[in-house]
């Protein structure tokens, strides 16, 4: 340490031992350098008569084989851990209620109400859509928020690297190996993109009537965007989807979602009559809030998934 600390320590020592105050300007005798083991003169390792000690031999052996042994130990441990976890869980599974049996604990009164009254309480023909966007809408709101969180975090991590010249040297674009003049790709894309877009929209809009919904439809829409970017180049997509529109559209869609669900939560908990009509089950305009919510979710998912692709391949949206 240094002098001040030493002085403090001496004072503390004197106080503990009950010594009187020391005279001022007392000369502190310099301490003799301790005879530490590593200050001794090392033996001549390389002399012909030097016999390696056990420790040196162990160190040499470790240097030669250490990594190898470590790798073997690691794989042995992974197998062990895997076997222990799997066997524990297998014993558990053997005790679980039998597969596909209709008297299982999961098939209880909760499910009965979802199936028997779900259609009329939510207005949706697809019971799963009614479940996730009406009965348990708070979970699904959280789920969209997870996607939003991830989109924002990835945007922060990857797009900031563009402004600084980081270690990869290129600064911005990570790879652009494909050529923009691929005639086959472009022709196929021009044929298939409208079909994919149409399919995506159908899946989103029919979410309350048939399998699908915002998440799966949004994924299909983002596939069309990614194909477009690959066939015509990212600049083509930039003309209608850049970083500002990306953030703006995701935020707006999530905001509409939050506001409409907030209204329905508020009215539900305070037992106020909600003004949202349920519609006739089976029609396209039915299911109350489910259709607009599906569209919002589809927009968020399409933007986010395309955003992930663009950020990973280009470093910008």
């Amino acid at each position, binding site marked *: 340490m240094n002098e001040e600390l030493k002085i403090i320590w001496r004072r503390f020592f004197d106080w503990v031992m009950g010594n009187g105050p020391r005279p001022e300007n007392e000369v502190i005798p310099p301490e003799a350098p301790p005879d530490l083991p590593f200050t001794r003169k090392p033996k001549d390792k390389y002399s012909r008569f030097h016999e390696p000690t056990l420790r040196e031999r162990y160190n040499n052996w470790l240097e030669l084989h250490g990594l190898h042994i470590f790798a073997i130990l690691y794989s042995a441990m992974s197998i062990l851990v895997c076997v222990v976890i799997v066997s524990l869980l297998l014993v558990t599974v*053997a005790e679980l209620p*039998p597969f596909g049996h209709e008297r299982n604990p999961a098939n209880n009164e909760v499910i009965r109400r979802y199936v028997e009254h779900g259609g009329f309480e939510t207005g949706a023909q697809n019971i*799963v859509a009614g479940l996730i966007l009406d009965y348990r809408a708070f979970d699904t709101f959280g*789920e969209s928020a997870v*996607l939003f969180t991830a989109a924002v975090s990835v945007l922060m991590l990857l797009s900031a690297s563009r402004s600084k010249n980081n270690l990869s040297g290129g600064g911005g674009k990570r790879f652009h190996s494909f050529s923009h003049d691929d005639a086959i790709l472009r022709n196929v894309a021009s044929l298939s993109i409208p079909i994919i877009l149409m399919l995506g929209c159908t899946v989103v809009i029919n979410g309350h009537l048939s399998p699908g919904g915002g998440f799966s439809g949004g994924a299909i829409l983002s596939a069309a965007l990614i194909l477009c970017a690959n066939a015509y180049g990212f600049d083509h997509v930039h003309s209608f989807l850049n970083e500002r529109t990306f953030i703006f559209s995701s935020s707006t869609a999530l905001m509409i979602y939050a506001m409409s669900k907030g209204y329905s939560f508020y009215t539900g908990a305070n037992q106020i009559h909600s003004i949202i009509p349920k519609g006739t089950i089976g029609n396209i305009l039915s299911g109350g809030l489910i259709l607009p919510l599906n569209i919002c979710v589809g927009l968020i998912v399409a933007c986010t998934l395309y955003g992930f692709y663009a950020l990973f391949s280009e470093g910008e949206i």
Partner: protein
Amino acid sequence: MLEKLFLNHYEAAAVILSGIGLTNLLLQRNLIKKIIGLNIMDTAVYLFLAAKGYVEGRAAPILLENGAGGWLRSSALYVNPVPAGLVLTGIVVSVSVTAFALALTLKVYEAYGTLNIDEALLKMTQEQEEIESEIENAEEKVLV
């Protein structure tokens, strides 16, 4: 016990997969392989949930018409819809988490030039030692 395991063979497969995924996530040294392990584990959980929701001989939970303008809504006709909703949430969570983990991996790769976390740690400690020795050298120069 084996008999019961055979009865629950979907769950058993899911559990084996999730064990494999968890082990990969814990013990692989390569970051990309770790993330693949995570995805295996998530997929296993979806399989498990889907198996939990299945009831023998019942249809998917989308209301069927009864032919007279009404809807068949007996609960003996459809499988459990809750696991489907949970799986959907799980998929979205897993997509988000995977994207974020890959972005961080890219950052680590840019910084250290390796995907192995041990090597990254080694490089970091070496860099720190270099910095410290540089500082010491500078201090010595000042003293001289």
